[in-house]
């Protein structure tokens, strides 16, 4: 018995000595907060914060280089927890959600040529600025859907990207790759949007799209507080976002081209009135 205790103890002691020596020799400074922050982060490594992976962001936050509210997928809860770890007051973040502001699918918007090639909007955009006649319209080749780390973007049969607001965490990854800049970040509190991205004049818009904004001002007349019209395109005034904009719904039925939609609940499909207009 004694031999057993002694030998085991001896082996353990030797190992402890060696390790103790090694621990001094190979000491590495580790910020405990970094590990703690990494623990709270969602771990999706989506890159929405602008750092390569959650680890990079955790390190940056721990070192005090960046603010703790840069993680949209984590939401306010995560921000609050990170803030607690690094000991700063939590900042209220306004959760955002991405919206494809276009309804011009194959049925409703014209194309200026027939595209042959890889299913990537960025590649199609390089050929004469993309097949869709409308310069702002969704090209529908699914680049954003392929990029979305959360599977929130789907492509309709008629080649239009649609974002599921329940799945979207607001990571913004889809915004920059879209060559048409048709994906916009909007406050989650607002579910009514003007779904058009064309700054062309109304007459021109009508030539290539059934559901484009023609800047007719009807929405603004119905709800002057809620809408702004800039450069021949209406949009919801998101500045009132925190309290849902008064009267924003009123304009939905007023829009002659049905391009104002309430996303919550998901809108019924636009009634098909006539076949797509011929190419201008």
């Amino acid at each position, binding site marked *: 018995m004694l031999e*057993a205790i002694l*030998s085991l103890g001896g*082996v353990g002691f030797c190992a402890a000595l*060696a390790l103790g020596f*090694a*621990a001094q020799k*190979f000491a*590495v400074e580790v910020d405990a907060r970094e590990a703690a922050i990494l623990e709270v982060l969602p771990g999706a490594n989506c890159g929405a914060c602008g750092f390569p992976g959650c680890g990079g962001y955790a390190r940056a936050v721990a070192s005090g280089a960046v603010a703790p509210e840069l993680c949209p997928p984590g939401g306010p809860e995560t921000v609050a927890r990170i803030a607690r770890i690094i000991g700063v007051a939590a900042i209220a973040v306004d959760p955002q959600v991405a919206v494809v502001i276009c309804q011009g699918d194959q049925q409703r918007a014209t194309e200026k040529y027939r595209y042959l090639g890889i299913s990537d909007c960025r590649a199609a955009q390089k050929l004469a600025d993309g097949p869709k006649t409308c310069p702002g319209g969704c090209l529908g080749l699914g680049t954003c859907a392929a990029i979305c780390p959360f599977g929130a973007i789907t492509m309709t049969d008629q080649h239009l990207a649609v974002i599921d607001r329940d799945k979207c965490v607001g990571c913004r990854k889809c915004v920059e790759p879209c060559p048409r800049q048709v994906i916009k970040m909007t406050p989650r509190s607002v579910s009514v949007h003007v779904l058009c991205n064309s700054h062309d004049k109304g007459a021109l818009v009508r030539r290539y799209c059934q559901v484009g904004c023609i800047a007719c001002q009807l929405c603004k007349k119905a709800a002057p507080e809620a809408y702004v019209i800039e450069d021949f395109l209406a949009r919801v005034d998101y500045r009132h976002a925190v309290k849902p904009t008064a009267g924003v719904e009123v304009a939905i039925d007023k829009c002659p081209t049905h391009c104002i939609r309430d996303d919550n609940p998901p809108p019924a499909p636009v009634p098909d009135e006539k076949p797509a207009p011929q190419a201008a």
Partner: protein
Amino acid sequence: MTELVLILISAIFVNNFVLARFLGICPFMGVSKKVETAVGMGMAVAFVMTVATVVTWFLQYFILQPLDIEYLQTIVFILVIAALVQLVEMVIQKVSPVLYQSLGIFLPLITTNCAVLGLAVLNIQKEYTFLEGIFFAIGAAAGFTLAMVLFAGLRERIDLCPVPRSFRGTAIAMVTAGLLSLAFMGFAGMVKG
């Protein structure tokens, strides 16, 4: 001499620790997503394996056996392995933080890697001499690294494949590991091991 070479070959191919003995599956599945990481893991395990074999061999024949306390074998061996893994962990963290990060939890888990303990125990069971033991350890380590690297290469390629949804991730990795092991069956009977 021939005997030593045969032990080596046997441990690498014929009785490959991962693909024929099915030991050390945890890191094999866990850190084989990238070839670089797999190489790092292979090296770490190789180091622990070789040193652990040497140390445990001495402990077995100079302490456990003379004192007639062989029933302590498992616990002593584990102690040695754990200490070695701690050491490797410290070294890697210092020398290559990137590798340290990518190995993650699997680095400390080498402690419980049955390939290492299995090797030490097999080494005693087979009553190898010290030199034979070292060759056995080197062979086992090389075999482990070979399996890791081959598998990592395959997984990197599979990552680019449109694997059916239900097979994605671990499922397809398991299927592939099975097929790889199947291919290694070809070496069966080459050396009695």
